[in-house]
């Protein structure tokens, strides 16, 4: 609808390649782990291409499209084949199906980029719209503030995530003022415009904490890195979770997954 056009007719077989994302690889191992656990719970067979690194987004957003294309070409080499590529991050997914085709507009290997775009899914989009899972089993007795990350705008993911979260037993999603406002991360923006970025993040944290949630939940570890970075500098210690962790813990709490 708007900036993102989730590709149509993507494959949704139960044998997938997982793109861990560099943030999970470096900082958030448990998010990747939760992703594997919920996908396997749903009977999905997971291949983890060993050569994977990053999706190329930092350079793409930073304006160095040459460098970005170099990385995207590596992604294409690493994620060969025709299986769906599942990505536990709205922004990395958007890089693959929206950003990369933009950066390759004038390149001869655009078809390969489009082919990868045409089989890439943000995790919850894959679960809800790919696999047709419309409800989540399990229990998660907590108040959460859900930060819908900017890269979900216009995609199917935002709706899908709300739908799944709302179906979990015991969960309460608190209302959020200015929900459409960004967390201020923006990749390299966070270090090249540190003052604006921090003001945006501080404001977002204020709004997210306004109704005293037990957790802040998002589908993008980029946002969480930023929000968490600000929260950890303050006296507050509200924990942050990726949606995948909530889904996994809900299953565990209901005894459907081993603790």
């Amino acid at each position, binding site marked *: 609808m*708007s*900036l993102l056009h989730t590709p149509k007719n993507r494959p949704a077989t139960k044998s997938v390649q997982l793109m*861990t994302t560099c943030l999970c*690889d*470096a*900082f958030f*191992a448990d998010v*990747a*782990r939760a992703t*594997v656990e919920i996908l396997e719970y749903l009977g999905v067979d997971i291949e*983890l291409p060993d*050569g994977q*690194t990053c999706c*190329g987004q*930092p*350079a*793409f*957003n*930073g*304006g*160095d*499209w*040459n*460098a*970005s294309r*170099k*990385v995207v070409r*590596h992604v294409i080499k690493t994620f060969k084949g025709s299986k769906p590529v599942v990505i536990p991050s709205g922004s990395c997914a958007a890089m693959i199906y929206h*950003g990369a085709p*933009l950066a390759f507009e004038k390149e001869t290997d655009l078809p390969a980029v489009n082919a990868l775009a045409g089989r890439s899914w943000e995790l919850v989009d894959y679960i809800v719209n790919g696999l047709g899972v419309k409800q989540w089993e399990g229990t998660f007795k907590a108040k959460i503030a859900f930060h819908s990350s*900017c*890269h979900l*705008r*216009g995609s199917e993911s935002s709706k899908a995530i709300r739908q799944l979260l709302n179906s979990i037993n015991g969960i309460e999603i608190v209302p959020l003022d*200015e929900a*459409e*406002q*960004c967390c*201020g*991360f*923006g990749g*390299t*923006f*966070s*270090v*090249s*415009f*540190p*003052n*604006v*970025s*921090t*003001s*945006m*993040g501080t404001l977002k944290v204020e709004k997210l904490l306004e109704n005293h949630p037990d957790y802040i939940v998002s589908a993008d570890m980029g946002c969480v*890195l930023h929000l*968490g*970075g600000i929260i*950890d*500098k303050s006296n507050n210690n509200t924990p942050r979770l990726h949606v995948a962790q909530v889904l996994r813990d809900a299953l565990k709490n209901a005894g459907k997954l081993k603790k």
Partner: protein
Amino acid sequence: MNTSQEIDAYARDIKKDIRNAVYDGCKKTSEKRYSVLASDFKDADALREMAGKIKQHTLEHLDDYLQKAEANLQKNGAHVHWAMTGEKANEIIADIMRQHNCKRMVKAKSMVSEETHLVSYLEKQGFECVETDLGEFIVQIDGDHPSHIVKPIVHKNRRDIAKSFEREGLGDYNDDPTTITRRARVYLRNKYIEADVGLTGANFVSAESGRIVLITNEGNARFCMAANRVHIAIVGIEKLVPRDRDLAIFLNLLARSGTGQQLTVYTQFIGGPKASSQPSGPEHTHVIFVDNRRSEVLASECKEILRCIRCGACLNVCPVYRQTSGHAYRSIYPGPVGAVLSPLLAGEKFPELSDLPKASSLCGACNEVCPVNIPIPDLLLRLRDKAKREGAKKGMKGTPPMGLWATLASQPGMWQAGLAAGHTMNYIPTEMIPHPAAQAWQASRKLPKFQGGEFRKWFKNRN
């Protein structure tokens, strides 16, 4: 915090009350926009997309539509002029004034006249020129610049304005908004009567009928025309719509997007100078179509920005604009639309404004509210790429160089070695990492514990 970016420094140093005024004004208008669109239309996004398509179509056939518009304007009795540059537009206007023996101009709001610096040009030529839009009037008496394309004085509060009025001899200090408005009205009424030429912009021009469409809330554009012998409309060439009926969708979207109103108070359709049967109205109508680098933009990879109908919604919703205010952008057009348009309109001075496209987290809120669905984040990205390709240094300041990272990220062996080695980061405080990016991050944010490679290990060893 230290920063190498001007806009970021501006946001850091901005006075609190200005920032709050901008923030609150933007938030309120954004919320009004959202609620009026949601309550009036089942699928406002479909309307935005349709409006975007109509504008895009117009741009793709702009030469045809401009010819049509010219022919129909002439049929209506208007004189049509063409100005490739802003200076040329100013000269044409001064010539028209001389030709009709005019000395005093009253002027309605027009962004393209800001681009050409019309008022200062005319004043230098010895003409009087008075802004009649209340906001622009205040900007004029203060020798200030508009900081928003719809609400030029969003950065001022009523106390500032009351002081300016007192200074200008418009009455004793009084910061009651109604009093301020009434005083401006009394002052401007006389100006309308004394003037001999009225200048307006145009929100739209229908190619099919040559109708000029103007919308205002104050009715000042109407006065500017009605009370004068000569009406001059200064119009960017992108302001066309193909047919009168297309106006329906644009008028439905423009006020709702810009101010959260269903319609502005006044909507005028101007079919040329007064007919002999009409008791009043201008005897002469001149329309000046201004290019001022628009055809360059049209030929660029960012041509979609010319769809813009100047509603200001992208400014209001933009989290960066809310923190910085419009003046931070150092150009006529601030905010998301300005971050794309201003560097392009700067022509060979692009490098000087190459930091504007960087002043965005690429959150996409602008795209989501734009009544003509301009993919602003994509255009910002294209300009970032352009700045890098052309070596425009201003844009690159503070952005970590990506070459080494790209090499690492395309060589799995090195990447994995990096993941393993990164653990040393857990033993040094981020404050100690001698990298400018790390410094910029740690000043206000912490990094989580490094866990490089742990997931891969778990994945391999489970079962």
